[in-house]
């Protein structure tokens, strides 16, 4: 490898099958100027130690696979230039607040189940009727939800969220932002069906508004903002239930 600089990676190792305790293993890597942390891990796996387990796919910051803790911060490893960590060492760990399956692989199945709970799809009766053309939606109406639709499900926000460490039942920033993304979509009529999953202590009201989710988000989804909007909408609805006379049309 025609390398220029050297850096040491300290990689978290854990193998459920050998019964051993987790430990950090150091690897020295010669790297090129444009290498990201993921490139170094891939090089180590290819050339030195094929037992390392990690996820990656696109290497361009959009598939959401390669999230990990890099020097204690949740990062996309394909989006973290090695040279920014010089002279090292760079400590690489699985995303925190998740069970670890092996090495840098976390258990994502819980997240996937929670995602479905917010019913993240357009709910209305004529959704499969394409005969009348597209539903109209102005650029301003798109702007109401667009940033919240940019989530790549990388789960960095779960690793950043302090509530997740205290309250594992919390629905979490990404799932709440996604539910809110559909609530704010002018085409959707399913807000009422999402209320149960999204409100309550495991939902919107579980958030203590530290805002770390929006800080670590690599795609500017602003989950904290989505949750705030959700709280306001939910509170308005709560007051409306008192103010409106019984039997009044919603």
């Amino acid at each position, binding site marked *: 490898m025609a390398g220029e600089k050297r850096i040491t990676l300290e990689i978290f190792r854990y193998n459920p099958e050998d019964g051993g305790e987790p430990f950090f293993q150091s690897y020295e890597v010669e790297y090129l100027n444009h290498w990201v942390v993921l490139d170094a891990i891939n090089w180590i796996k290819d*050339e030195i130690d*094929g037992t390392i387990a990690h996820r990656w796919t*696109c290497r*361009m910051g959009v*598939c959401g696979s390669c999230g990990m803790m890099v020097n204690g911060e949740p990062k996309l490893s394909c989006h973290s230039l090695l040279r920014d960590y010089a002279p090292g060492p760079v400590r690489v760990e699985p995303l925190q607040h998740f069970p670890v399956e092996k090495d840098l692989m976390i258990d994502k199945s819980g997240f996937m189940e929670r995602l479905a709970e917010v019913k*993240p799809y357009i709910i209305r009766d004529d959704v499969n009727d394409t005969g009348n053309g597209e539903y*109209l939606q102005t650029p301003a109406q798109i702007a109401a939800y667009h940033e919240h639709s940019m989530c790549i499900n990388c789960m960095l926000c779960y690793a950043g969220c302090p509530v997740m460490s205290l309250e594992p039942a919390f629905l979490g920033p990404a799932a709440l932002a996604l539910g809110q993304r559909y609530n704010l*979509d002018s085409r959707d009529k399913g807000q009422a069906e999402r209320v149960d999953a999204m409100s309550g202590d495991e939902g919107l009201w579980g958030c203590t508004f530290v805002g770390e989710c929006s800080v670590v988000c690599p795609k500017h989804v602003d989950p904290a903002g989505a949750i705030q909007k959700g709280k306001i909408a939910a509170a308005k609805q709560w007051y409306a239930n008192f103010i409106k006379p019984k039997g009044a049309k919603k």
Partner: protein
Amino acid sequence: MAETFEHDVVVVGGGGAGLRAAIAVAERNPELSVALLSKVYPMRSHTVTAEGGAAGVIKSNDDLETHCYDTVSGADWLADQDAVEILVNDAPRQLIQLEHWGCPWSRERDGSVAVRSFGGMKNQRTWYAADKSGFHMLHTLFQTTLKYPTITRYDEHYAAKLLIEDGRCGGVAALDLRTGSMRAITANSVILATGGAGYVFAFTTNGAIKTGDGMALAYRAGVPLKDMEFVQYHPTGLPGTGILITEAARGEGGIMLNRHGRRYLQDYDLGQPLEVTDPRHPQNRMMELGPRDRLSQAFHYEREKGNTFKMEEFEDVDAVHLDIRHLGEKRIDERLPFVRELCRDYQGIDPVHEPIPVRPVVHYTMGGIDTDIDGRTALPGLYAAGECACVSVNGANRLGSNSLVEILVFGERAANTATEEAGELKRPNPDALRTQAKDEAKRIQQTLLNGANANGGVRPAHVRNKLRKVMEAGCGIFRDAGTIQTACDALAELSEQAARMTLDDHGGAYNTQLINALEITGMLEVASAMAHSAHARTESRGSHQRTDYPERDDAQFLKHTLAYRQEAAAPRIDWKDVTITRWPPGERTYGR
């Protein structure tokens, strides 16, 4: 040992085509149970990286006929025209359906969908969601699958083998990555939607998962691979990483410049340039909006003339410039925000202020599993759709934005066929299928996991890296008998090496090195089909340019290649007529 899971339909692959197929089965027959199996979580699938958009006639100044002609001529007449008509006719409905499911297509002021120009398309018809169209399509589809209780997902399962009994496909043997155990996922119908094989080339926009798994599965089961010599080079990839800079950059008005600042495409029969300030710029089917094959070939000639420049920081590769500065920051941020983000993060430049260095990069496999227009393969019970399949609508060169609609149209279509035919054939004996899955687990154990090759073994990554270089050197933008033969020989040698691959990881849980090794054996099969098909086609057409046979030869080669796998021998190449309906072969012209 091999746990068995019974379903009615198994979909292998969770990208756009696979998700669309799973939804179609669930919608069409809620009685059927669908298994949706993918080696990654579905939203990681490569559809997510698609940027520019999806083509479908929607505006009053456009028509279906023109979209058909653009596609057929773009394909250099190798597309099957009945399939193209299906694609074009169904495209608008599919894109509206996706809109109804929540895809945030970019809009006009009045709220109707917006369309943009794309290469090789006479009219504006490419629907887009800024420059993250594939991302939004994939997430919309994935989120929509969550509505259907009849869809059971098998995330992070690697399909190692098709289960075949009584001459029909009855499921797949799949490794559960989490535990490493082999499972028999059985069904009456199996739909392959595993994507393309761009990763068999060294320099590619394709993610690491694009290893042609489904193509290899079908090929090993005796199903022919069609038109595998046609591999698309996209003209604008970032020089170091191969990251795609979307054609939409040119659709919005971006221009290509050589190192002298000349808009060199005018020298390659693509028309004359207009000033970027001219309101008629960019002109469709001209200059920067020519088709990808022609633009990538133009780059090659420019390099030969010394008109490209070297990128020192990337091992002196050659590049040209894609310049979008004249669009201005506002428009770039509105229409091409991802391009700006990618350039800043991965190239260290801001395209608002600097031109983007680019070079051609392997992007798409036009060829694939031979299917009919309803998604059937030659093996009863097996269907295919999307980039892994070859219907064929892309022929010798795909037009940008046709593939994102192909995955919808033919994903649904294959699913409809699979649904209708799911009850027709006698279901194979589950014990026989389970035994096959068990045998596959045993084979993997003996050949790869036992470490029998500890002496003289080869690291899987070394086989893979060599393979990818071999394909680039032998089967690149221009080929000839010599380069192709060299590739064929090297692939044969690599296959022998692959038989001696040695793993560091002998465990079960998340043995990703084992998965890589299995992928590599498939990549070798797919690469071999590509190289031998390229060898057999002694003409130049679309993306297949033979310097020793520079002309298109309709008399002999207005035909699809069919590569059949042979045990311990080169593939057998057969031929199949192209379906011509309304557009007889003609001269392929741009810019005039």
